Structures are given as structure tokens and as C-alpha cells.
């Protein structure tokens, strides 16, 4: 059937500059560029182009420009080009539209409507280049109060403490499984996490055996509905265990890993036959209610000898604050909430773009809910889904988060351009693919250095912003909405965020 869909991208090649070196041809896994030996020139099939910019970046002559093609349709506010073409694709295939990465729809980005405070006169701002500026954060359950026995100046803690994760900066790498991303990308995240004294999350695809000794100390391992790759050693080699209930990009459904990406090594790590689809069930089939979750949390605590905090990750949906409160009562030490703009390796487009709520609103209402219940200290909140820069981290923490997970931001640091073709397994940047020819393009040393640099850069910026507010320890910013003001928001939005309008 002939496709009626127009190419999404236009490829403009400067024939004057092009040296016919065929680098673009080699770099493109989608087969866009081919060499025509008769005409001695390169030709492009724009229909195949994902817009990932690999050829444009790696063209030694800078001869290629890839840009979104203009719409050819009569302008129509209701029937946008995207709507028309998605519909055509479905008419041609009869299937669910798949996509990758976080939602690109213009839902309000609250980060961009919140401004931060700074000290003037009555309170000195603190210079992070000359004074200590502390970002160390503890993630996990804290007791309601501490009992202390003091004898002759000798002070002893009587209260039994729950295990906590310690991070030197409040930024963790979000769950991205081996299988969804390449071994090199996975290993780069692990390396950077250890080097930056933070944690990476294995996602639901297990942790390759040979990585456990070296990277277990900075790993959070996930237990998802598919139960891929889980054994006692997997749980115990890590520093925390996360039960994945939901994901911001696709609340209500499970993970998708097409068989094409299940290589021998992925299969071994996941404990499934090579080449089979790894489709996680939508719910955990042993969790149909909150008490079932409590039992799974207990089971995992038992399996890890009560030495590791248990996190529960849920997607931010309408009633999630009440649900999350239940999760704290069920014994979770950390709650990870993933918002509407959270990324994915593969999700039905209809779900990615229509289900869930923005993470900014979610953090604030969860923080307030837990405070109202008087149990905010019993769990830590890690927020995910749409963190793009250090200022977003600062705002998230002032809205009540303890730390943030970054996924897309980490991938972008490694080279990702958010082309949204992760589900094809043909990632030209070697990130979201299991093709050894492609994944070999990602050098672990370079990628992990880029990630370490990112964490370091953001941490420096967070210190600068904290110092400006006259705060020298991150814990004094947590839930401190006093330092936030909203701009261009409706009253109800300010209410949900719990912040004043600018100038109020």
C-alpha cells in the first residue's frame, strides 16, 4: 500500500561542500542516505528520516541540514498535520501508534512559571565559592522522634533507624533498563552514578552479573510486573529496591521490549529466551490492592534483611496523593512519582500524550498531603518526569521533593536528540539499541564523562542558587515554598502548587 504520509524531515545537502565520503550513509541505520556511483553523489530518502541529526553532526564537511519539513496541508486548528498523519498511518497499518521519549505536547510546563528568591540586605546571600554549600541528602524513612540516652556527656542513640540512601547531590538516574538501552549506555549511567556519589536505577531488565560487584554500591534495582532478572543476589547487591507500579509515560500499562531488542545477553540478564518479546503485564498480578503491595514490600524487606530502603514508583495520576499516602502506610521508604512528561523506550502514543498529570503539581500535592497526615518524615519523595535543568531541580525540591530522577536529560547528555524512535531499536546514537554495530558507537568512557560533567554542572548551579537564597544546606530548601513565586498562573494552580504569585 502506498503511504500517503509526507516525510517529517527535509534533508538539504550542500553539493558544493559534500565530498562523497559516505559517512552519512554509514551513520544512518534507517537507510536514508545512499551513494549513487553513476552520478557520484549521495541521495536521500526523506521518508525514512527520523530526524535524529546523527548525519548532520558527523558530516565532516558540515554539508547536511536536517530540518522539520513544512506542512503541506491547509492550516486547520483542529486537524493539525500530526493528527492527519497519525490517522493516515493507522489507516495504513491498523495498529497502535508507538512512540518513544516523553510527551512533546504543549501541556503547561510549570517550571517555567515559577521564579526563585534571592537575599537582599536583611539576610546575606552566601558565596558558594568561599563558604560550604551542602547538597548531601538522605533518602528513606526517618523516625518521628529520636530517643537519646545521655550519660555523663556520652550520648547514645536509642531509636532504631531505617536504612537510608545517601546522595551527595539530589540527582539520580531514572530507571532505564538494559534491553531498552544498550549495554554501553547502561554501563555509562552506572559509572557516572558511582563517580558522582549518586545512584542509577536498573529499570526492570535486571543487572548483568558482571556489573554487580562493581556497580551494586550505586544501584537501585527495580522489581516490575514482569519480574525480569530477579534473584536474591540481584536484590542484595544493590543499595535499594524499587517496586515499579507505574511509569509517567504510560500509566496503567507495563513495559514493552520488542523481541528484536532481546539479544543473547539481554535474554540472559532478563532470564527469558532470546528474541522473545518482553512485555510486562499492566498490573503486578500479585498486587490487586494496597494490602498486596504491603506484602510485597515486606517480602522484599525480608529478602534484603531489612538493610535496604524500599521505593515504590508510581505514575502521577488523578488520585495519586491518596494512593501514595497508602503506600507510605504500607511500609515504603521512598516514593518515586513520575509525571506526565516522563520518558519511555516504547509506549502507545495515545497513552503517552493523554494520561497522567504534570510532575510539578504532583510533588506539591503529595508533599502537602503527607504533611497533613503527619507522615512526611516517614518517606522520601523522588520526582521524575520532565526535569530539564538545575533550576527545575531547585524548584522541585522547594515544592517538597527530596531528590529528582533524570532520564531524558541523562540520555541527552550521552547524545540523544529526542527523535522518539527508541522503539525501533535503530538508535543511531548507540543508546536505545541492541545492534552491536550501533551500540558500539557509544564509548563508555566518553559517555560516562559527559554524564559526570552534567551532574557536576547542575550541582554547581544548585549551589549558586541556594547561596543566593541565603541557604547553605539543601535540607533547608525542602518544601520551602517561601522561596517560590508563580507567574502567569491561575489561582487554582497557585493553590495546588502552594505558592504565592510574584509580587504577593
Amino acid at each position: 500500500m502506498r503511504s500517503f504520509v509526507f516525510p517529517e524531515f527535509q534533508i538539504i545537502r550542500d553539493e558544493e561542500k559534500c565530498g562523497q565520503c559516505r559517512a552519512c550513509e554509514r551513520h544512518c541505520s534507517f537507510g536514508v542516505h545512499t551513494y549513487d556511483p553513476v552520478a557520484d553523489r549521495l541521495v536521500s530518502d526523506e521518508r525514512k528520516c527520523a530526524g535524529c541529526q546523527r548525519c548532520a553532526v558527523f558530516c565532516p564537511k558540515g554539508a547536511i541540514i536536517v530540518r522539520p519539513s513544512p506542512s503541506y496541508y491547509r492550516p486547520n486548528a483542529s486537524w493539525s498535520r500530526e493528527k492527519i498523519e497519525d490517522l493516515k498511518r493507522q489507516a495504513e497499518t491498523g495498529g497502535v501508534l508507538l512512540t518513544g521519549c516523553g510527551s512533546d505536547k504543549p501541556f503547561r510546563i510549570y517550571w517555567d512559571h515559577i521564579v526563585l528568591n534571592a537575599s537582599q540586605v536583611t539576610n546575606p546571600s552566601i558565596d558558594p565559592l568561599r563558604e560550604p554549600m551542602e547538597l548531601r541528602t538522605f533518602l528513606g524513612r526517618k523516625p518521628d522522634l529520636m530517643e537519646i540516652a545521655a550519660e555523663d556527656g556520652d550520648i547514645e542513640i536509642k531509636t532504631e533507624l531505617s536504612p537510608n540512601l545517601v546522595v551527595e547531590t539530589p540527582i539520580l538516574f531514572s530507571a532505564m533498563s538494559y534491553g531498552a538501552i544498550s549495554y554501553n549506555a547502561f554501563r555509562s549511567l552506572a559509572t557516572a552514578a558511582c563517580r558522582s556519589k549518586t545512584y542509577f536505577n536498573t529499570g526492570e531488565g535486571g543487572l548483568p552479573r558482571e556489573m554487580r560487584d562493581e556497580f551494586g554500591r550505586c544501584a537501585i534495582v527495580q522489581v516490575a510486573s514482569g519480574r525480569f532478572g530477579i534473584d536474591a543476589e540481584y536484590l542484595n547487591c544493590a543499595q535499594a529496591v524499587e517496586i515499579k507500579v507505574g511509569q509517567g509515560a504510560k500509566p496503567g500499562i507495563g513495559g514493552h521490549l520488542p523481541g528484536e531488542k532481546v539479544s543473547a545477553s539481554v535474554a540472559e540478564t532478563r532470564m527469558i529466551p532470546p528474541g522473545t518479546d518482553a512485555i510486562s503485564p499492566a498490573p503486578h498480578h500479585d498486587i490487586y490492592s494496597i494490602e498486596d503491595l504491603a506484602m510485597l514490600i515486606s517480602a522484599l524487606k525480608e529478602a534484603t534483611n531489612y538493610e535496604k530502603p524500599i521505593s515504590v514508583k508510581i505514575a502521577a495520576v488523578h488520585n495519586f496523593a491518596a494512593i501514595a499516602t497508602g503506600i507510605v502506610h504500607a511500609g515504603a521508604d521512598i516514593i518515586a512519582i513520575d509525571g506526565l512528561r516522563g520518558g519511555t523506550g516504547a509506549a502507545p502514543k495515545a497513552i503517552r500524550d493523554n494520561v497522567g498529570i504534570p510532575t510539578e503539581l504532583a510533588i506539591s500535592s503529595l508533599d502537602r498531603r503527607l504533611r497533613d497526615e503527619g507522615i512526611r518524615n516517614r518517606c522520601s519523595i523522588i520526582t521524575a518526569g520532565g526535569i530539564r535543568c538545575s533550576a527545575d531541580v531547585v524548584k522541585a525540591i522547594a515544592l517538597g521533593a527530596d531528590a529528582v530522577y533524570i532520564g531524558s536529560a541523562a540520555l541527552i547528555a550521552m547524545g540523544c536528540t529526542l527523535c522518539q524512535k527508541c522503539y525501533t531499536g535503530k538508535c543511531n546514537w548507540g543508546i536505545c539499541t541492541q545492534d552491536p554495530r550501533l551500540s558500539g558507537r557509544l564509548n563508555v568512557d566518553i559517555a560516562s564523562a559527559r554524564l559526570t560533567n552534567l551532574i557536576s554542572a547542575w550541582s554547581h548551579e544548585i549551589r549558586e542558587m541556594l547561596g543566593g537564597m541565603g541557604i547553605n544546606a539543601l535540607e533547608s530548601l525542602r518544601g520551602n515554598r517561601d522561596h517560590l513565586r508563580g507567574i502567569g498562573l491561575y489561582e487554582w494552580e497557585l493553590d495546588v502548587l502552594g505558592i504565592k504569585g510574584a509580587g504577593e
Partner: protein
Amino acid sequence: MGFEIIMPRIRRELYNKEICACSIFGAMNQGGERVSASGVMKAIANMRVRGNGLGGGFAAYGIYPDYKDYYAFHLMFTGKSPQAKQEAKLELEDFLSSRFDVVNDEEIPHDDEVKLRDPPLVWRYFVLPKEGWDDSGIVPSEGDYIADQIMAVNAGIDNAYVFSSGKNMGCFKGVGYPEEVGEYFMLDRMYRAHTWTAHGRFPTNTRAWWGGAHPFSLLDTTVVHNGEVSSYGTNRWYLEMYGYACTLQTDTEVIAYAADLLMRRQKLPLEVVAKILAPPIWNSIDRLPEKERKLLTTLRMVYGPLLMNGPFAVIIGTTGRMIGLTDRIRLRPITAATRGETFYISSEEASIRLISPELDRVWTPNGGEPVVAELKSTKKVLI
């Protein structure tokens, strides 16, 4: 016909935090000798330039020996008209009589010759909780019960504020220079105390709000404070979780409540409390021997939300104790001194020298390290 669906709207946290800089002064006679306020009034007046006449106050310990077993509630009834003040007073007394036995009450004597701006009606009640206050079995202690009632008044009754509530002690405060407030309440003539703390205020706004002057107190814990707490929002939500209603729109209040939570309710030793409010930096903690490192790490982990960030110097008073503390990087001044049995803490040494030119010892405490004066003898106090 039909239903009305009401969406509950969560209120935004629309509090206004007042910002101010200040002078603080404290003097304790560790032998328990009770003295008049004239010295402390002279000392705080000497730091006039640190205030701007928009707030001053005093806390005095040992002033009500005749009623030493009763909680002395100092109430402030504000309002535009005398009627509004009376209405607030009636409402308060209704509330009080349902929960407490009031053994005595009177208007707090004051000198009308001293002209202060918008003085409220200021009244004191000596009370004990009515028998059966603990019948429900859910309130852990009498102190918690009293604190809950104070929160209920301050958050629930318009124009009525309990600003002092301990036994055998009292706070006096208002809008004016501290020495004027002292004269208004005739502190130098009416009362003798073994411990006095004082405060002169420099708020950046001009609203004459008597409740906003220092000291802030809950039960017998009083706080005079110089500084701005940049962690206010964080401290506030943590304290609210433990039932402290922050109604007085100032950051000093959170220090008073934090001190109450940690010292009275959680019974933590003072050294520990100081390390919670002004903890050492991680670089120092990480270098300590294991036992201390573990203690300090745990304290920061558990009580991070009570770290008082930003510049501050405070004098915390409790019965038999006076504590001076500055923030962890010492952004506000504090000086301590002793002479004989008297222990002084002040923003400036000059004020101490003014009333006691000869001193046995004068020093500047380090950031985060508390200086503590303790009553050595309680005999004289109990007379």
C-alpha cells in the same frame, strides 16, 4: 434538583513573614538572686541603633513566686475598638473557663504616661487545667495539653493572642523601643527576676503589630532572636506536622516551637538541640571519630527540617537556663561574659560593660556552639 459538587480548595500558604534585625541581651544571676529590670533596660537601651522603635520586649523568670505553681497566661487582645478587644476577651474567657481553673486574673499593670502606639488590652490569668484534662488518655503530658490549648487560641480566636504561658515567668512586649516597653509595663518597679532577656527590634515594615515583638514563648521557653531564618518554610511545615500552629508571622516563632519540641517534648539534651538547630558542616562531621560522626550524621538525617538556616543569634530562656546560640557560619554577633554570679549574653559587649564595667570573662562563642548559663541554686528562686 441535582447535586452540588463542592471541590475542596486547598489554601495556598499565604503567610507574610516579617523581616527584622535586632539587638538581644540576656542576664542571669546564677545564684538565683532576683533583681529588677533596671540593668537590663539600661543595657538594651544602649543598643538603640540596632532597633527602630517598632518592637521591644522582655522575658523574666522568677517573677511570680506567689503563683509559682500556676501557668501564667499573658493575653493580648487587639482590635480597632475597645469593643473589639472586649469581645475577644469574652470569647477567650469563655474558652479558658471551659478548660482551666482560673485562680486569679487582672489587667497587667502599665503606665499610661508612656505613649506607645495602639496598645492592646493586656491581661494575665493564672490557671491550672481542669481536672480530667487527661481523661481521654491521648494527650501525652500536661505541657502538651497546655500547648494545644494555646495553639487553639492563637489560631482560632480572632484578636486574642497568648504571648506568655509558663510558670513563675512572664513575657512583656510591645511596639516601641525596648526601654519604652519596659517603662510601659513598669518592669523596673514591679518585678524582680533571676533571669532577664531583652530584645530591641528593627522590622523592615512599619505595621504596629504587638504580637510580632519578641520574645516569643511557649510554656516556659522564650526566644529573643536577631536574624532571618531562610529555612522558615521548611521549619514551619515540619513543626506544623507536630501540631505547632505558626500564627505570629515571624521566623522567631519557629525557633521557640523547635526548642519546645526538642527540649520539652522529645527531652533531648541541650548539646544535641544546638547541633540540630545549627549543625556542623559535613566536612567537619566526616572527619570526626566514628561515634560522634554517627550521632551528628543521624541528627542531620532525622532533623534536617529543623536546621535553622540563614543568619541568626538567639537567646533561649527556660526555667533555670539561658542559652545563647549563633548560626552555623556565625553571620550575626553574640558575646558572652560573666561577672561574679551573673552571666551575660549580648549582641554587643558595650552593653554588658555599661552595666558591669568589670568582667571576669568575656568571649565570642563559635558558630553553632551554645553558651549555657544555669541556675546553680534554686533555693532562692523558690522563696
